[in-house]
């Protein structure tokens, strides 16, 4: 059947429709796209919070020329006053993206069993591992990228509006632009997202995905209560809190390894980043190994699980 005359145009149209995607990666690519269709909150929630931030920012624009005029102010304090809304915006958008990640991960492999659509997905030639990896891509890659893009755009709009207000009040924008340092703080944001949200939190998302593949009901409770129970058990029986400390270490974001200034905003442009120390932290690699094991287990579970 496959005569050259009809094989050539076929592969030609294929190449035209999706040029960067090869046959082997197409199911994966389509599966990621599918997640974005189903969970529109992946981009709508950060966009909505960005809208709220921009709206709120309109009311405080008047404070920017005041902060610039106040020459008596210590430069560090001035910077803080000017940069605070930008850090706040970034933190809010990241926070929302993190919350979406958690709820997405808990529902990703549970929802398809609950609404029986797993029978439809399983009728197509997409392996369970491909499906699980596509779903893991959302919290591990898509949401950090979405959070980064939306934050940068939001901050740029904020800076643009501030600059207009500053110019209108007859001041120079130079101080504002040096103090805000959008480019540098964007790079800090990117560093924070990659180190903490992608790499350090990977086992958290993978654990939630595993529970969502396993639980027959209430995946949130199954994800949260057992670690809590272990912590309480350890406290009562051994009067120690190693497990609780471990959980705190993970959820706290491994800040001691990521950068030098704990307690400060991760976007502080004067912060000293320590990527070498971060990469040398055993906790990072143990976490990534756990994440990989959880995902493999989730794929195996999906293989055996039908609708609930």
């Amino acid at each position: 059947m496959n005569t050259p005359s009809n094989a050539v145009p076929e592969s030609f149209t294929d190449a035209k429709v999706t040029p960067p995607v090869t046959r082997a990666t197409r199911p994966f690519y389509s599966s990621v796209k599918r997640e974005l269709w189903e969970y529109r909150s992946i981009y709508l929630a950060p966009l909505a919070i960005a809208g709220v931030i921009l709206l709120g920012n309109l009311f405080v624009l008047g404070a920017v020329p005041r902060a610039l005029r106040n020459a008596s102010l210590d430069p560090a304090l001035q910077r803080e006053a000017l940069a605070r809304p930008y850090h706040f915006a970034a933190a809010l958008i990241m926070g929302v993206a993190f919350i979406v990640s958690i709820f997405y991960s808990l529902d990703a492999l549970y929802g398809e069993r609950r609404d029986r659509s797993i029978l439809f997905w399983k009728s197509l030639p997409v392996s369970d591992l491909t499906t699980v990896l596509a779903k893991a891509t959302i919290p591990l890659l898509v949401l950090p990228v979405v959070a980064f893009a939306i934050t940068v755009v939001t901050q740029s709009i904020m800076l643009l509006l501030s600059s207009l207000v500053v110019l209108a009040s007859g001041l120079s924008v130079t101080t504002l632009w040096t103090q805000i340092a959008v480019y540098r703080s964007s790079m800090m944001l990117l560093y924070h997202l990659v180190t903490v949200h992608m790499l350090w939190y990977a086992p958290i998302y993978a654990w939630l995905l595993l529970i969502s593949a396993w639980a027959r009901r209430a995946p949130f409770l199954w994800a949260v209560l057992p670690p809590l129970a272990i912590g309480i058990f350890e406290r009562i029986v051994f009067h120690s809190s190693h497990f609780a400390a471990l959980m705190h270490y993970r959820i706290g974001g491994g800040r001691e390894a990521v950068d030098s200034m704990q307690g400060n905003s991760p976007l502080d442009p004067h912060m000293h980043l320590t990527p070498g120390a971060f990469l040398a932290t055993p906790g990072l690699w143990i976490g990534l190994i756990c994440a990989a094991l959880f995902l493999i287990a989730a794929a195996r579970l999906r293989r055996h699980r039908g609708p609930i």
Partner: protein
Amino acid sequence: MTVIEARGLRKAFGKTIALDGVDLRVEEGRILGLIGPNGAGKTTALDAVLGLIPYEGNLKVLGRDPWKERDLLMRDVCFIADVAVLPRWIKVSEAVDYVAGVHPRFDRAKAEVFLAKTTIRHTSKVRELSKGMVAQLHLALVMAIDARLLVLDEPTLGLDILYRKQFYDSLLNDYFDRTRTIVVTTHQVEEVQHVLTDLMFINRGRIVLNCSMEEFETRYAEVTVRPEQLAAARALKPIHERQALGRSVLLFDRVDRQKLAALGEVRTPGIADLFVAVMGNNPGNPAGQAQGAAQ
């Protein structure tokens, strides 16, 4: 070529035995109806064939082990498991895009042609479609896939008679071409009688009847017996007897039609009547254990 071959297929869920040593052989180009009461093991058998559950015994689908080689097998096998498994949030256009993205044998143009014959709009979400339209959409997606085996588990459950009829008409006219194979389970047996080429009854995890439709038509005869000949008819050992409009209707297995014609009006029974007869009988009954060749 044999599409499905099972020997001693067994599956137990805890203490419940869903499949109890099933032997089964389906050749290419057949349309097999798998008929059985609720809980007979139909869905379990199909799940095993589709590689959705592990099993004991030998099973080959298109020469592959469905549990171990499921990902490869799904390129050649399609299924509609139950109605309403299409996700409710998906748009019609997204469903087409997704299947086109993941299935190497999906022909988008074909799917569009099928959809154009319906009133389904591309911008609609599945949750906005009626049950019948969802079934049409699913069938359009499945029929556009160049698969060798299509498995349908209660594909028309809950649809009205017009949709049901249209469903099987499309399947026969636009899809089935003698090189494909279809396995279907349904409770609406009267409606598939003219569709099937093979018939299989399953009960309590065992196959209780297995014959081709040609064989079914020559083997079984239903006679509306005239009252005065009832005793003579009963002497021929009918496998089932029922009353209809005050007359006795007797079902015979492998009894000469000439002989039966003398007793009353003879016709080929409906699958439903045979089903009632076979299921109503003791599993130890010779008729219940009758095994015809599938091919």
